[in-house]
């Protein structure tokens, strides 16, 4: 029998980026809020102080700050006719764990989606005709528009102090920014970061090829900043231990630097760490959540009753929680019915390494930050005519090299042996003069009928519950997109002056061992029709109106950008709907 705790107004499942935003917003409304977080409390002085944060082995290779698969993992297969096997150690993505969630160890590349990304299905059908889209592609409109979200993007950027150069101010295109972005109501809160050598060289080559390079919007701050909550951040020092690491300088936007110090001082807020929510509890009608049940690391089970439940556990764990709590109809790809698990997507990443003459080029690759970079957007979304190419989608691309940490980044030209004197000499000769952009081509991943999440028939977690099963593969559309974009990207790296290129196209099948990004999306998507979406346009569950589901699980498909700007904007948007509409009259905000 779980021990029963006193009832709260709101229980938040997972205290990462979106959990922190909702906790701040709802405590401001005067509600009594508790957040329950699976992992430990994390902060800079304890977990990543600048006297040992810069440890590549500990944080990057052995990934100290992440979830352990023994606690929770997934099974994986490419195709519906294969047997899914457990992901025994992480590979293609890295699930966060602990207070701050992915915000602790993200790069902080802080993009907005384009206006057309929110109405993708409508836009592409109007421009190219429905027959242009692959038959089994299941893309949808979001049900919310860029214009509705603009003020919430702005709120997140000002919370974070995002460094960047505006490309479109209230409809006026700005020199030096991204001309393809949607109109923004005001400039970025802080100017763009200074760019290291190879990044500026990329921008110069791109400009000469006729593109419009812009600095990547960054949550590694170009200067000291005090956010609207009164919390202060210091300038980024380009330490090069950013993504996968926590920032020891209070320079990277995270819940720790932008929200938590204020939040924990509010008398109507409590957090419990090292406590994993097992399921959301429903009353007999099945249409009303009564709270959650969680277990702490001492093995004690607790019940936390609440009037309102916010599920903010990250894409995969959101979907798993809904399946385990039997909320919403699980998706069945054969019947093409049901909603929980449908439209699961990831990202289509590739890169091109460029090798330069070491007598002429010295890049000092270790001088960098997680979200540094110069990018172009000419090949993102529908910014170019897809008619002649036979695919849809695209991505930004750029020299976004974030570090020179040698275990991961010491590179040798293609064809070099993997060991021996030739390898050693090549490593020495190329380290300072190689361009290695990491996620150089950051492509979209659209949704398909046979890419989805459900419960595994065989493997179980430590409580004996089924693991969640991922069925995911690349489709021709994404592979064509990637080949086209990677070639375009390679032209720019060549124009920078590289003598040798190593083009690393994204190839199928989807490989669960090869890190791409931790930008997983879908499975509990937002929309306007309850038969094809799990939540409405305010992220409210169609089935259980006192449950709101945050995170990229809401994306019907993934755009060619990093998700968190949009994830956070949606969180602010949902918070404002809860504050402005729901609390006055608890119940469905949209009647289907």
């Amino acid at each position, binding site marked *: 029998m779980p021990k029963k705790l006193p009832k709260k107004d709101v229980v938040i499942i997972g205290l990462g980026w979106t959990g922190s935003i909702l906790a701040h917003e709802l405590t401001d409304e005067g509600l009594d809020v508790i957040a329950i977080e699976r992992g430990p409390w994390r902060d800079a002085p304890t977990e990543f102080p600048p006297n*040992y944060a810069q440890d590549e*082995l500990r944080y990057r*290779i052995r990934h100290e700050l992440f979830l352990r698969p023994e606690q929770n993992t997934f099974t994986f297969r490419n195709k519906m006719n294969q047997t899914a*096997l457990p992901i*025994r150690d992480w590979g293609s993505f890295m699930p966060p764990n602990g207070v701050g969630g992915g915000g602790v160890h993200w790069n902080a590349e802080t993009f907005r989606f384009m206006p057309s990304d929110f109405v993708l299905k409508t836009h592409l059908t109007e421009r190219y005709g429905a027959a242009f889209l692959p038959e089994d592609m299941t893309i949808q409109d979001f049900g919310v528009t860029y214009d509705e979200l603009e003020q919430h993007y702005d709120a997140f950027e000002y919370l974070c102090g995002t460094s960047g150069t505006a490309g479109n101010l209230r409809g006026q295109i700005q020199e030096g920014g991204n001309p393809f972005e949607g109109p923004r109501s005001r400039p970025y809160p802080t100017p763009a970061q200074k760019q290291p050598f190879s990044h500026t060289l990329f921008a110069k080559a791109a400009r000469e090829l006729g593109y419009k390079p812009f600095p990547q919007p960054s949550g590694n701050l170009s200067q000291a900043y005090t956010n609207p909550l009164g919390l202060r951040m210091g300038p980024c020092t380009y330490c090069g231990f950013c993504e996968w690491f926590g920032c020891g300088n209070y320079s990277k936007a995270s819940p720790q630097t932008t929200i938590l110090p204020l939040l924990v001082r509010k008398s109507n807020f409590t957090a419990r760490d090292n406590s994993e929510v097992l399921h959301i509890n429903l009353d007999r009608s099945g249409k009303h959540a009564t709270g959650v049940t969680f277990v*702490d690391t001492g093995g004690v089970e607790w019940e936390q009753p609440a009037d309102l439940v916010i599920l903010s556990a990250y894409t995969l764990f959101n979907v798993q929680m809904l399946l385990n709590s039997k909320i919403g109809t699980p998706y069945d790809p054969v019947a093409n019915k049901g909603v929980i698990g449908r439209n699961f997507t990831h990202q289509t990443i590739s890169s091109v390494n460029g090798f330069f003459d070491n007598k002429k080029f*010295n890049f000092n690759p270790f*001088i960098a930050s997680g979200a540094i970079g110069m990018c172009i957007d000419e090949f993102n979304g529908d910014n170019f005519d897809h008619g002649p190419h036979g695919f849809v989608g695209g991505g930004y691309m750029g020299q976004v090299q974030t570090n020179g940490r040698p275990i991961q980044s010491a590179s040798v030209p293609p064809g070099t042996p993997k060991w021996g004197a030739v*390898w050693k000499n090549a490593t020495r000769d190329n380290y300072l003069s190689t361009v290695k952009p990491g996620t150089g081509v950051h492509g979209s991943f659209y949704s398909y009928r046979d890419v989805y999440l459900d419960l595994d028939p065989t493997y179980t977690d430590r409580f004996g519950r089924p693991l969640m099963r991922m069925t995911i593969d690349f489709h021709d559309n994404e592979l064509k997109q990637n080949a086209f974009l990677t070639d375009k990207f390679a032209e720019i790296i060549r124009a920078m002056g590289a003598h040798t290129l190593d083009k690393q196209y994204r190839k199928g*099948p989807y490989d669960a061992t090869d890190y791409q990004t931790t930008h997983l999306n879908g499975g509990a998507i937002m929309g306007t029709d309850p038969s094809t979406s799990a939540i409405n346009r305010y992220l409210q569950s169609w089935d259980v109106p006192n449950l709101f589901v945050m995170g990229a699980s809401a994306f019907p498909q993934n755009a060619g950008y990093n998700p968190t700007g949009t994830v956070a904007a949606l969180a602010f948007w949902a918070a404002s709907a809860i504050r402005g509409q729901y609390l006055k009259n608890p119940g469905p905000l949209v009647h289907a």
Partner: protein
Amino acid sequence: MTMRRREFLAGTAILVLSTMKSRATIISGGLPWTPDAGTPPIPVRPGPWHYFTSDEGRAVEALADRIIPPDPQTPGGKDSGCAVFVDRQLAGPYGRSEGHYNQPPFMPGTKQQGSQSQKGPAAVYREALAALDRYCQSTYQGKRFADLSDEQKDELLKNIEDEKTKLEGIDGKSFFAQVIKDVQTGFFADPIYGGNRDMVAWKMIGYPGARYNYLDWVDRHNERFPLPPVSLMGRADWSPKP
């Protein structure tokens, strides 16, 4: 005791769900900060092998020196401590695949599904190093791998890599790939873990190591960064000479 403490340095001890570190707490009223609560890494000390037998240790030193051969400027894998690094890693959480999902059934899968082996790296090394020595002893008149000439070692390793030579009972190609990865990881990791002694690998490539501030350098383009590397332990010349 030393062993336990050292496990913290690769960090994975945290996943033991019942350790002090991960006791559930209730946070309210202020940041739950206590002084000296961190877990700084504990330096690896030279000395006897923690995991390897002496034959295994010799074999791994020999492998490390072929993967990273010494040259006049930079020591090889052995003298830069790579075998010590691998030994200490295998003796710790890495060797046991600690934290991995380890529930049955164990079924063979596709390459894309990742390793489905029940064995951790420590067990893999034990079996594979024995198979390597057995192969050498039967092929090279009773000599172990460490006793072959450099040319013989290189030729054999090349053949294992190309799957022209098979080792009995183990997947030689993937084992050698793992040794390459582990040895090179030790070469480039902070010297606190036993490899990259005196930061030789970082000096070789021009990497300044654990420095944390390049604000003055971000826009000094195409200039060689002039300062020598530092490690998490500082620099030898920062410590007073005895």
